[in-house]
């Protein structure tokens, strides 16, 4: 039987790796993928705690997080396509002016 604290530690490690990826990468799509990594780490923590409390609400919440991540990915990637079309670049350091 694997102790639940191991899963919590793994979730913390994945979350911090997601933060590192978000801060250090400059390609918008890769930054977006780091956000998805953070969401996945949070999902793992939800299910681990749900199991330790013996409830199913953890899994219900993970269900909703997955659905919301899908909606966010769709809308966010549409914005990324628009940025590529207008600025011809996917480097966030070049998308720093409010005026085109």
């Amino acid at each position, binding site marked *: 039987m694997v102790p639940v*604290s191991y899963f919590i530690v793994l979730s913390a490690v994945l979350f911090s790796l997601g933060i590192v990826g978000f801060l250090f990468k400059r390609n918008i799509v890769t930054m977006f993928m780091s956000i998805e990594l953070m969401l996945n780490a949070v999902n793992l923590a939800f299910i681990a705690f749900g199991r330790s409390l013996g409830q199913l609400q953890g899994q219900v919440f993970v269900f909703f997080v997955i659905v919301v991540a899908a909606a966010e990915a769709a809308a966010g990637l549409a914005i990324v396509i628009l940025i590529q079309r207008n600025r011809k670049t996917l480097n966030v350091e070049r998308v720093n002016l409010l005026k085109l």
Partner: protein
Amino acid sequence: MMMILFFALAAIAVAGAVSLILQKEPIHSALSLIIVMVALAGLYLLLGAEFISAVQIIVYAGAIMVLFVFVIMLLNAGNEERTNFSRMAAYIGLPLAAVLGAGLVYFVGRGSQQVANPEVVTDVTRPLAMMLFKDYVFPFELTSILILIAILGAVVLARREGDSE
């Protein structure tokens, strides 16, 4: 047996996450993220959340990441460019980051020791479905509207100028 599986899946997940950060091409980062998601689905199975692990693979790894891969292919997202990397930051920063990471792992591990460890319950699909459709039916229907809004938003945003309809 479960410990071996846990450590194998956890190692795969962490390796995938590190590879996500270190790769130069976005398509390789996307592949690493898919590996992380599949490893996480295995971890959910270890925790007894069988329906959520299947949903994770079907929705997250099988649809959302396909969307990412499509966008990377269509936009021909280029490589990460070189940045002026400060040597000082590497020599001092990386060891300090390692210390911080080790401290994080230690404290989180110690703090969650008191969490209870009940037995894993299988056959959760029916109670989960009951909960989704009875107690949480309002958020459930709201998320369907949310997805509809996201679809409309994505279609409107990504349309080219001069398109009819």
